[in-house]
C-alpha cells in the first residue's frame, strides 16, 4: 500500500513518514499529496505567532487540552529555526506539550525552518494538509517567532493569534513589524506579571487606530496565563467566534481563495525553478554563465531571458 492509502486508513507511521518525505522534498511526496488533497479542507487552522519566550508553546498545549475536552482531534505543527552554520536544529516546543504525546487524538510534529524565511518551513502547508487528511479537526501552527515579518502564517491559517507579554505594548517595534495587521486575536500572556492590563489597554488603543469597514472583524485583546491555564477557555471561545464570523460574513471565501493562490504560486515557483535550474546546472550552462559573468562577457539579465525563451518554446 502506498503512503497515502495507509494514511487514509489511519496509519500514524505512514503520516509521519510522508511528513518527512515532504520535508526532504522527495518527488514521491507530491503524488501522495495529490491523492490526499481531496480529503483536506475539514480542519480549522490556527496560527500562533509572537516573540520567543512569550509562551506560545505553553499556550498551544493549553489550547490543545481545551479542544480535546470538546472531543476534537488536534494536530500541532511547531517550527523552530535551523542553525545556518551546521544545518542542524534543536526543536524544543514539545517540552511544553509532553502530556499529549501518548493521546491518540493528538499528533504533534516539530519542523525546522531549513533556511526558509517568513516564520514557517517550506513544508508547513503540506504537513498541515496531511494532518487535515488524517482527520484532525483543529491544526495549530506555532511559528518560529523570531522574524520581523512572520506574514506567511496569515496566508495559511484561518485564524491567527498574536501572543505578546506585558511590557510589549509600548514597544514601537510592534507597530513597525506590522504585527498589528496580522492578528485576528491578540493575547497578552503572562498576565500574572506586572503591567498586563496596561499592555492590553495600549494594544487595544493602537488597534482602534486601524480603519475597520462596516461589519469587519475587530481583533479582541485577551489576557491569559498559559502556565496556570487562566483565560484559555475564553481564548478558545474567541477563536471560535472568529471562525463563525468568517463563515457568516462570507469572508471565508476570500480567505480560502488567497490561501489556495498562495499554495499554488509557491508550488509553481518552486517546481519551475527546480526544473529549469536543475537542467542548466546539469548540462553545464550554469557554469558557463558564471564564467561569462566573471569576465563580464555575459550579463545575467540576458542569460535569464535566453534560458526562459528556450524553455518556454520547448
Amino acid at each position: 500500500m502506498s503512503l497515502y492509502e495507509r494514511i487514509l486508513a489511519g496509519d500514524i507511521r505512514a503520516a509521519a513518514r510522508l511528513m518527512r518525505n515532504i520535508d526532504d522534498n522527495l518527488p514521491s511526496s507530491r503524488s501522495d499529496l495529490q491523492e490526499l488533497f481531496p480529503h483536506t479542507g475539514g480542519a480549522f487552522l490556527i496560527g500562533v505567532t509572537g516573540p520567543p519566550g512569550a509562551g506560545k508553546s505553553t499556550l498551544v498545549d493549553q489550547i490543545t487540552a481545551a479542544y480535546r475536552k470538546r472531543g476534537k482531534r488536534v494536530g500541532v505543527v511547531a517550527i523552530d529555526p535551523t542553525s545556518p552554520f551546521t544545518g542542524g536544529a534543536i526543536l524544543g516546543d514539545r517540552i511544553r506539550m509532553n502530556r499529549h504525546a501518548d493521546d491518540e487524538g493528538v499528533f504533534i510534529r516539530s519542523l525546522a525552518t531549513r533556511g526558509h524565511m517568513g516564520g514557517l518551513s517550506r513544508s508547513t502547508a503540506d504537513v498541515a494538509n496531511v494532518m487535515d487528511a488524517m482527520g484532525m479537526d483543529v491544526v495549530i501552527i506555532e511559528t518560529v517567532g523570531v522574524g520581523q515579518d512572520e506574514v506567511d502564517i496569515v496566508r495559511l491559517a484561518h485564524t491567527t493569534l498574536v501572543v505578546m507579554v506585558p511590557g510589549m505594548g509600548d514597544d514601537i517595534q510592534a507597530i513597525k513589524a506590522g504585527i498589528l495587521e496580522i492578528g485576528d486575536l491578540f493575547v497578552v500572556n503572562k498576565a500574572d506579571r506586572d503591567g498586563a492590563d496596561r499592555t492590553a489597554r495600549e494594544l487595544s488603543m493602537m488597534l482602534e487606530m486601524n480603519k475597520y469597514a462596516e461589519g469587519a472583524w475587530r481583533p479582541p485583546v485577551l489576557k491569559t496565563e498559559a502556565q496556570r491555564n487562566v483565560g484559555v477557555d475564553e481564548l478558545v471561545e474567541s477563536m471560535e467566534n472568529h471562525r463563525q464570523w468568517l463563515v457568516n460574513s462570507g469572508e471565508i471565501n476570500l480567505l480560502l481563495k488567497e490561501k489556495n493562490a498562495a499554495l499554488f504560486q509557491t508550488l509553481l515557483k518552486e517546481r519551475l525553478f527546480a526544473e529549469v535550474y536543475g537542467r542548466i546546472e546539469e548540462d553545464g550552462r550554469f557554469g558557463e554563465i558564471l564564467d561569462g559573468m566573471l569576465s563580464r562577457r555575459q550579463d545575467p539579465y540576458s542569460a535569464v531571458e535566453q534560458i526562459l525563451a528556450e524553455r518556454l518554446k520547448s
Partner: protein
Amino acid sequence: MSERKLRILVGKPGLDGHDRGAKIIARAFRDAGFEVIYTGLHQTPDQIVSAAIQEDVDCIGLSILSGAHNTLLPKVCDLLKEKKAEEIVVFCGGVIPEDDIPGLKAAGIREVFTPGASTDQIVAWVKSTIAPL
C-alpha cells in the same frame, strides 16, 4: 535537490530533575547537522515512543541517572516493538553499572555510553549505526 536529514529524539525518562547531560547531547547532535527533537525531563516510555513515531526519528538518545534504567529502558524497546518501530535505534548515556549493560543490550538498547564517552564518539557511533532510509 532532496537530501535526507537525520532526526534524533533526545530526552530524559525518569523522575530525577537534572537534564544537563541530555542538553549536551542535544547540542552535539545539532552541531553535527541533525534535527534534534528535545523533549526534556520526566518522560514516560509511552511518551517517548509516541513522540519518536510522530516525529519519524532515526534514533532515540536517552539520558538516565535515576537508577531506574533497568525498567524504563527495556520498556522503551518493548513499546517500539509493539508499534512495529523497532528499526529506530535506541542508545542511552548515564551512570550505569557495568553489570547492567549486557541485560540492557539484550533488551534492545543498542549501545550504552558511560560518563567517559565523548560527544564526538556518540555522534560517530550514531552516524555509523542508523540505517539509511
